[in-house]
């Protein structure tokens, strides 16, 4: 029965085969494949499979790319989000993206290995030059895939890497700027750039690659694979042997592909975001934000690192070009040489292996390796977001380590080449190693070391090639190239024009028009040094002519006749308008002239320790009154145009000896004439209050000064200053929030000044520790350390013009100005009534006064630091302490659970899972905790439990998601194990099958040999 089934099955297979063969001539194709031979040499067969492996990875890229396209939505608001959705939500989305990324890197890796194997085996030699050229272009397309695909996640790393990568294009002479705009779709990298890169990545590049792969394969099919050259220099080529393409070579290919897929799956599953080395990591990170600064240490993909590092090595200008231009030129020349290798290598065309070219290939590897190692910051620990190369010390360590690695590698390779492969030519390969050593250990710059090695290269090339005529011509051409850049006049890069020699302002008078009297003052010297500094002179030169003329007039009138006075004005560096205001005021002109004034009446630039610091000219020019046109005469009397002291000046204020002793005239003077007069104040600022005096009379300060005659009590100038009064909104003003504690503390924190001042009870001395306590309080720290202008300062609780201590009844209301929720909750609590009955100042009872500390959970409950226990034991019931303990314990429990959940997330994230959403959810527990703590003020168990419950629910939901993710991770591991076992089985069986076929027993139908 079984035999009958087998016969029937074979019958069906034969029928299907015949049906297809009749239509498509499959037998002919099979016969062709069986007769096609793959050359077999003494070297490893593995080099013949690298192209196939690259093609395989490309196929994986197409497949995984198509899968990604099914969810990816290009767009500013969707690119990052859709990929995040793929990675975090879609089943196996993380695997598909990870495979796409890993496969991209492995494809480039196998492509490079393929290219170098072709180079070293001279497979590019005649007649296969075009295969090399198409391969080179395919390599360029692969790099294009990498570069365009990098931007598509639209995250921070890709954004800045693309910005830097595209920017280098502008160095191309002539069309650079245009090309940059075309690449970016505008001036800057934007979502338009992403659209362009997207079109390139999923449409243009695949079509170009498919076409070129077709051509590349056609060439290989037509010409066959290159037979091996002689293994050792000087030996004859081995006799031609072959292996049937089908099935022997194809099955080997299949085996390698399956193994490659398994390696890919293992890497993708175990390291879904890459191995974490620079240029090989693809965690989504943060979304791109063009308005965020780039973070240090941003690097491109590893296969661009050599170019990235080379760009960094170039100075801003070199050989008359901009650094990037010179770098691009050199890189283009190197790539051009690599491209033209089949033409340049004349020996290979004649079927001989050129020792110099082999060495050249090795040298290129050293050259690239050194640049890559350097950009990888070898020798210093990698810290994310830090560029170790920025510090000279670490930069030196990196260079030395990189050059040591290159030297070590080169020694090993050279020994291998000399003794295993019999190579004897090492001149060219030694040069990049020499360059690395000169740069790393002899202190030469990379380019200087490069120049030395380049000269040596020319010498080596001349010595190597001058034996033959074409070689001599090439050597001469290279020598010419070396000489030419030195001889050609450097093409100057565009540099900004030097600044204009004219330093005069647009509408200023030329120096020749300045009167001699003024020039005399300006040039006056004291002790061999000019009185007016060069900065002051420059300021004068830049003044408009009408302001300059005012100086000339003042000098002419004789009121400005001191070089120090002139220097004082010019060094203030104030606006033209203020200069004019000062120079039209005779009070200012006279009182700034040291020839007319004593030190007690002279205004000049003074320091903070000057005993007459209230006569600081710098303060005067910033005074809000002066800026509104109210200069000296506004308070002192007289007119700005008076030539001498007006009598009114002496009548307006009390006598000098009286006014210094009794300061009560000051508030009256400030308010009666101006600040309490709405009509007058409206002329300047209708918004300003005019009730300061009303409040001040009621304040403790006002009562002390005006009623009790205590002259020490604060009045207007105590807080606002005298000649430099600023708007309260100015950060320099003594009544600006950050300065108020210090302003009040000038008196209140001075025990000597406050001696004799009593509290309201008339007995207790006024404490002077408020400022010190405030500095340490939660409010003081917020103000001074976090610069939080919303933090309450002295006047927010005590009032300003009506300053007085808040009474018991009003303390809670004052706190409620900011802590609204807590106040409202307290109002509905049983404590409200209890506190009222005891006459306790609500908030202050638990939180304190000037030294209010940041509330801690220890304050609740009955443990150490509790503020509940003492009162409860004296006045409460046992249940009160139980409730307080419940509050404390629940908050502790919620915090502990949040911490544990975060630890679980940490563990899960270390496995490569993306749990950003869970982390965000756990962050919301902080809000729930804040709400729960607020609810304590209601002292209501149900309200509290409801608020805490929200936090517990959030933690539970987050833990559930983490748990699910971890279970998913376990499933991944099991799945990976199963698939690896199956692939291993497939590989083993395939290997057995290949052996069977090699021995000639692979055909099931008749056992005949495949060839």
């Amino acid at each position, binding site marked *: 029965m079984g035999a009958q089934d087998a016969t029937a099955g074979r019958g069906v297979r034969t029928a299907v085969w015949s049906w297809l063969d009749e239509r498509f001539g499959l037998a002919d194709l099979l016969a062709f494949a069986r007769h096609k031979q793959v050359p077999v040499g003494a070297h490893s067969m593995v080099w013949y499979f690298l192209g196939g492996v690259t093609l395989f990875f490309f196929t994986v890229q197409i497949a995984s790319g198509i899968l990604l396209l099914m969810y990816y939505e290009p767009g500013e608001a969707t690119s990052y989000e859709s990929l995040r959705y793929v990675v975090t939500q879609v089943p196996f989305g993380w695997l598909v993206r990870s495979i796409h990324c890993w496969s991209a890197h492995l494809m480039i890796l196998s492509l490079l290995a393929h290219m170098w194997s072709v180079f070293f085996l001279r497979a590019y030699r005649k007649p296969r030059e075009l295969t090399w050229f198409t391969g080179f272009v395919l390599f360029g397309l692969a790099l294009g895939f990498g570069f365009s695909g990098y931007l598509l996640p639209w995250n921070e790393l890709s954004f800045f890497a693309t910005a830097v990568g595209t920017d280098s294009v502008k160095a191309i002479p002539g069309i650079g700027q245009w090309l940059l705009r075309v690449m970016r779709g505008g001036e800057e990298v934007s979502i338009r750039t992403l659209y362009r890169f997207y079109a390139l990545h999923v449409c243009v590049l695949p079509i170009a690659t498919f076409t070129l792969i077709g051509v590349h394969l056609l060439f290989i099919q037509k010409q066959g694979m290159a037979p091996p050259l002689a293994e050792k220099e000087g030996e004859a080529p081995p006799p031609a042997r072959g292996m049937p393409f089908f099935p022997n070579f194809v099955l080997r290919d299949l085996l390698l592909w399956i193994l490659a897929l398994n390696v890919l799956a293992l890497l993708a599953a175990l390291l879904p975001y890459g191995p974490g080395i620079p240029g090989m990591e693809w965690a989504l990170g943060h979304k791109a934000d063009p308005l965020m600064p780039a973070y240090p240490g941003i690097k491109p993909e590893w296969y661009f690192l050599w170019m990235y590092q080379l760009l960094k090595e170039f100075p801003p200008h070199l050989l008359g070009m901009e650094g990037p231009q010179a770098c691009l030129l050199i890189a283009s020349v190197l790539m051009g040489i690599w491209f033209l290798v089949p033409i340049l290598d004349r020996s290979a065309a004649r079927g001989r292996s050129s020792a110099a070219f082999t060495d050249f290939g090795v040298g290129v590897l050293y050259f690239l390796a050194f640049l890559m190692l350097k950009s990888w910051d070898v020798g210093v620990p990698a810290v994310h977001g830090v560029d170790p190369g920025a510090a000279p010390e670490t930069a030196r360590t990196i260079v030395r380590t990189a050059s040591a690695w290159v030297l070590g590698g080169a020694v090993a390779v050279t020994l291998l080449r000399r003794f295993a492969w019999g190579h004897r030519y090492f001149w060219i390969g030694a040069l990049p190693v020499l360059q690395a050593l000169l740069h790393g250990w002899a202190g030469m710059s990379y380019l200087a070391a490069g120049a030395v090695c380049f000269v040596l290269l020319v010498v080596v090339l001349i010595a190597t090639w001058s034996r033959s005529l074409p070689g001599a011509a090439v050597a001469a051409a290279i020598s010419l190239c070396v000489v030419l850049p030195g001889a050609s006049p450097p093409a100057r890069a565009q540099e900004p024009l030097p600044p204009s020699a004219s330093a005069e302002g647009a509408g200023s008078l030329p120096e020749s028009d300045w009167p001699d009297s003024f020039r005399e003052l300006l040039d006056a010297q004291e002790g061999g040094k000019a009185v007016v500094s060069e900065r002051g002179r420059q300021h004068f030169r830049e003044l408009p002519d009408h302001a300059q003329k005012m100086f000339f007039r003042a000098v002419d009138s004789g009121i400005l006749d001191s070089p120090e006075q002139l220097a004082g004005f010019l060094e203030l560096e104030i606006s033209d308008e203020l200069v004019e205001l000062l120079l039209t005021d005779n009070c200012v002109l006279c009182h700034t002239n040291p020839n007319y004034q004593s030190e007690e009446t002279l205004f000049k630039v003074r320091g903070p320790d000057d005993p007459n610091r209230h006569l600081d000219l710098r303060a005067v020019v910033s005074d809000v009154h002066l800026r509104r046109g109210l200069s000296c005469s506004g308070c002192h009397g007289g007119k700005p145009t008076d030539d001498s002291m007006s009598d009114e000046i002496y009548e307006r204020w009390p006598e000098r000896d009286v006014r210094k002793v009794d300061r009560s005239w000051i508030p009256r003077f400030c308010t009666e004439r101006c600040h309490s007069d709405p009509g007058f104040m409206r002329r300047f600022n209708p918004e300003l209050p005019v009730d300061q005096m009303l409040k001040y009379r009621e304040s403790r300060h006002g009562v002390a000064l005006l009623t009790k005659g205590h002259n020490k009590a604060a009045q207007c100038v105590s807080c606002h200053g005298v000649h430099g009064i600023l708007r309260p909104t100015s950060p320099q003003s003594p009544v600006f929030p950050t300065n108020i504690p210090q302003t009040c503390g000038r008196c209140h924190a001075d025990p000597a000044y406050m001696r004799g001042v009593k509290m309201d009870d008339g007995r207790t001395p006024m404490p002077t520790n408020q400022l010190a306590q405030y500095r340490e309080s939660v409010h003081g720290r917020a103000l001074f350390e976090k610069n939080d202008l919303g933090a309450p300062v002295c006047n927010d609780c005590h009032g300003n013009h009506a300053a007085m201590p808040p009474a018991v009844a009003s303390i809670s209301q004052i706190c409620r100005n900011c802590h609204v929720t807590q106040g409202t909750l307290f109002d509905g609590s049983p404590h409200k009534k209890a506190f009222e009955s005891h006459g306790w100042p609500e908030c202050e009872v638990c939180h304190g006064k000037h030294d209010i500390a940041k509330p801690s959970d220890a304050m609740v409950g009955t443990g150490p630091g509790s503020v509940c226990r003492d009162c409860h034991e004296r006045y409460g019931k046992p249940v009160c302490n139980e409730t307080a303990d419940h509050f404390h314990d629940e908050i502790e429990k919620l915090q502990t659970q949040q911490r544990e959940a975060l630890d679980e997330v940490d563990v899960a994230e270390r496995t490569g899972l993306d749990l950003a959403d869970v982390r965000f959810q756990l962050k919301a527990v902080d809000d729930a905790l804040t709400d729960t703590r607020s609810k304590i003020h209601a002292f209501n168990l149900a309200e509290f439990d409801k608020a805490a419950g929200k936090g517990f629910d959030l933690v539970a939901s987050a833990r559930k998601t983490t748990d699910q993710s971890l279970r998913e991770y376990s499933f991944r591991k099991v799945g990976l194990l199963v698939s690896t076992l199956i692939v291993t089985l497939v590989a083993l069986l395939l290997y*057995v099958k290949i052996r069977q076929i090699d021995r000639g027993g692979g055909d099931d139908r008749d056992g005949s040999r495949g060839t």
Partner: protein
Amino acid sequence: MSSHLAEQSERTPPRTRRRLVTGLLLGSLGAWLATVLYPVLRYLSPLEQSGGANETVLGDNAKHAIADVGFAIIPLGIERVIVFLDPREKLHALSAKCTHEGCTVQYKSDQGLVWCACHNGKFDVDGRVISGPPPRPLMAYKTSGSIDGKVVISRETA
């Protein structure tokens, strides 16, 4: 001849062994294909969308549409709902997805019936099939409130 045959049998594995290897190879290739296909198929299956809201309030645009063209099609969760006033000014809400091939239906106020333009399916104002190919009636939704005020359309069957 016999020596040649003996040599052949020594060099080539027995047919059953070759068949076993081929069979195992094909079988394991199939299993390997399954491990590749399983994640791909899971990846391709869209995540289940939630049904969304159970009720919705008729917006002003929809009310204007009912006044102007006689009906409005509004979303309710992931479903489409047609809302219209019948000739007796009674508000109806029916599933707008024709039960025949899923086209979106419309209300013909001049004929007082719901019509599907794709294959000429006709339903009465309560969603019952009058003529044409639709195999089942349109599902009716519950409406509450008046068109002049707040109208709530809910999933609860009318």
